[in-house]
């Protein structure tokens, strides 16, 4: 497993390098100019030119890329054009809220999708199964911002149970932090749960129809043991794949949720940076998100090898 992890980790380095290139190129393709944004539409061309020079935007793209990559390699993400704050400080400040949101959202999604899929698969075509299926389709087709607004209206405005927006760091007040995270996490989790539930249910149904399950039943193994030890474990492999992809979607989903609930996370930081053409921040946010996606994929790959020992790099005759 160690060799497998080392090889997988090493393979992320060229991918990350490629990402830096793409991120840099895409950032500079966005129409608009940070100097114009900073000075406003009434600025004269002279003023814009002066500020562009001060920001170092007049150097050739290749020079700017080389400068940026060498700094990133040394752990320096640059300085925000607008606030003059080191980007690493901005990222460090925004990261906890996003990580917490994604973690809670994922936990909620798993807490809903796994039991719902287990019940649905064991009670195919029952009222619960129908209800869960309808619920899952509704979840998949519901825009997260709309769901967020509805939840806020019900739980914050109408019933005054939870705050409508904002973020309090856990170190400041844990209870207020958790209260504030309930609605955004549920919004994020519900959407994700719908997709996960559908995949896990389908995987379980397929596995439950396999011969070895029939054999286990004939041998008198208890039904819950068959379900959890045999069927569920095997259905987990495609589920983990989908979970990895869903987590990637979650990275994008947080942007919307952070906007609706006014959470100062990575998504909001990135969005504001795009609107301001704060290239350094945009590049850093995309890079960190891409790195997070690679990390999630790495964890998924490692989980594969744990779930199915045949899936290991270099194992003889194993599935790779």
């Amino acid at each position, binding site marked *: 497993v160690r060799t497998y992890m080392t090889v997988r980790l090493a393979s992320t380095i060229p991918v990350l390098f490629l990402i830096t290139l793409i991120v840099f190129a895409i950032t500079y393709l966005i*129409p*608009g*100019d940070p100097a*114009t*944004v900073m000075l*406003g*539409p*009434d*600025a*004269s*061309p002279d*003023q814009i030119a*002066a*500020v562009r020079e001060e920001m170092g935007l007049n150097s050739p793209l290749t020079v700017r890329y080389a400068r940026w990559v060498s700094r990133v390699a040394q752990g320096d993400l640059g300085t925000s054009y*607008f*606030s*003059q*704050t080191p980007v690493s400080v*901005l990222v460090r*400040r*925004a990261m906890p809220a996003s990580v917490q949101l994604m973690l809670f959202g994922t936990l909620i999604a798993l*807490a809903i999708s796994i*039991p719902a899929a*287990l*019940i649905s698969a*064991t009670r195919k075509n029952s009222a*619960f199964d129908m209800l869960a299926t309808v619920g899952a389709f509704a979840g998949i087709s519901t825009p997260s911002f709309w769901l967020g*607004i509805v939840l*806020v*209206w019900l*739980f*914050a*405005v*109408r*019933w*005054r*149970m939870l*705050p*409508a*927006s*904002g*973020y309090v760091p856990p170190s400041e*007040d844990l*209870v*207020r932090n958790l*209260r504030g995270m*309930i609605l955004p996490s549920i919004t994020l989790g519900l959407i994700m749960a719908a997709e996960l539930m559908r995949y896990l249910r389908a995987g379980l149904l397929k596995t439950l129809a396999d011969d070895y399950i029939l054999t286990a039943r004939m041998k008198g193994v*208890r*039904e*819950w043991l068959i379900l959890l030890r045999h069927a569920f474990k095997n259905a987990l492999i495609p589920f983990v794949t989908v979970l990895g992809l869903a987590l990637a979607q979650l990275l994008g989903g947080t942007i919307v949720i952070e*906007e*609706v609930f*006014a959470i*100062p996370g990575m998504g*909001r*930081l990135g969005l*504001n940076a795009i*609107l*301001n*053409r704060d290239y350094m921040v945009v590049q850093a946010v995309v890079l960190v998100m891409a790195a997070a996606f690679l990390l999630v994929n790495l964890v998924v790959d490692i989980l594969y090898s744990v779930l199915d020992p045949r899936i290991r790099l270099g194992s003889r005759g194993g599935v790779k």
Partner: protein
Amino acid sequence: MLTKVSVGRSAGRLLVLALAAALVLSGCSKGTQTPQTGPDQPQAAAKKEGPITVALAGDTTTLDPSGTELITWAIVRNQVFEALLKMDPKTLEMKPHIAQSWKWEDPTTLSITIRPNVTFHDGQKLTAEDVKFSILHFVDPTTGSPFRGRMASVQAIDVVSETELKLRLSAPDAGVIGGLGQVFLVKKDTPVETLKAKANGTGPYKLVEWQQGNFIKLEPNTSYWNGSAPAQPLTFKIMSQMETRISSALAGDVDVLLDVDLKEVPRLQKESAVSLLLSSPGDNMWVAYLNARRPALKDERVRKALAYALDRETYVKAFQSGLAKVTNSPHSALGAFYDKATEGQYPYDLKKAAALLAEAGYPGGKGLKLTLVFPSGYPDLKTGSEMWQSALAELGVQAEVKELELAAWSNAVAKQFDFDIAWDIKQDGASDPAVLYSTTGSFAPGPTNRNAMFEDTYPELTALLKQGKGTLDPAERVATYHKVNEFWNEHMIQYTIAAKPVAYAVRKGVSGLDPHPSIRYLDLTKLKRQ
């Protein structure tokens, strides 16, 4: 089958546990409790303790008072920093503030006397040297103030004493008075990097913490020079979505909403949790730039036809809750320079528009294709653009409506001039036309303009503007700017659509908000909980 039941039971138990945890969390907090009542029921007062929270639509990009003119920063800045003069909310005139008095010694020399007892938040005394430094910082192009043109005629500044200074101008410029309300004072020799990161003003509030993208916290300046420190601290919460801001106010998470969308006003008027306050329509204005760089729009008959083709009264009634006021003047209706005689001009009249187009060589709109651009995030501009588009279609004109992301819109409108018609909201924070027509004003003649104000096309207008700026006699200036307005409408230099009031909402139990028509000058020092 039993096993299935047990799976279901486990899941059920988990669900009950999760719900119980959520209920416990929803009921406990170190913070204050809010009663569990619906919005239709009488609301309890806002939280009694803690700072007054104000929802802010966006963050600032700097703490340098002259570094940006973002409205969101201007609102915070106005509590922390101070200028020499302050705009009166009723008349929009500039009144003494840090400057006790000012006097024109001759048409190009303005002498100013400042208050002797003003101190910065760090305890240092404000002197005339600080004022000089602040003006020079404001006009420095690298500072980045888009309003720096308001003080462009300042050639030299002489410090006479600790409390007196003289501004020497390159030419007579009455607009400098408006500019003095825009120069926010900072301590002499403060490095630019420090100005960007640390706010050391003289205002009634001190900035204690700025967490980018999240909040800005202010506390009362207990040694404020006029002896009346604000009652409570302020926290600006950054919430970019209007719906989030409204929900948060209704849920009791924020106390004050600023610049509420006018179409949301009827909805909020029905909510007992908040009170609505409306300013008079004054400084804010919807305008449309008619790009006379384009051959078709060089012809003033086409520009006039476009003006007749927009049903502004319906736009205001249907989409702005009837609260805005159609205007044909670039000058604020609250100020002395407004000309009532312009009212009623350019009513919605498609017949007249069609006749003008035919006269200009576009019978039945044939051959006329226009691009109408507006920045995204402004539904009011989108609605207006689409209304205009459909009216133009009736005239046979093909108008393409483009919603551009703000930076791309800025680029297209101010840099590339790649548009025919562009919607904008003018928020200059100035009532003096000399400021509006200064080099960085909304209606600046010159290379950055987006309308038909080219010196060679309309020399008569250029002469009038020069006269208005260079005359110090108030009555003469009023008469001159009335002529400017007359000329402006006669040749449809630029289309002014409607003046917009500013809507504010405060939670019940919070008082002291004076609804300023220019949100840049909003004073929050009297805010308190009853």
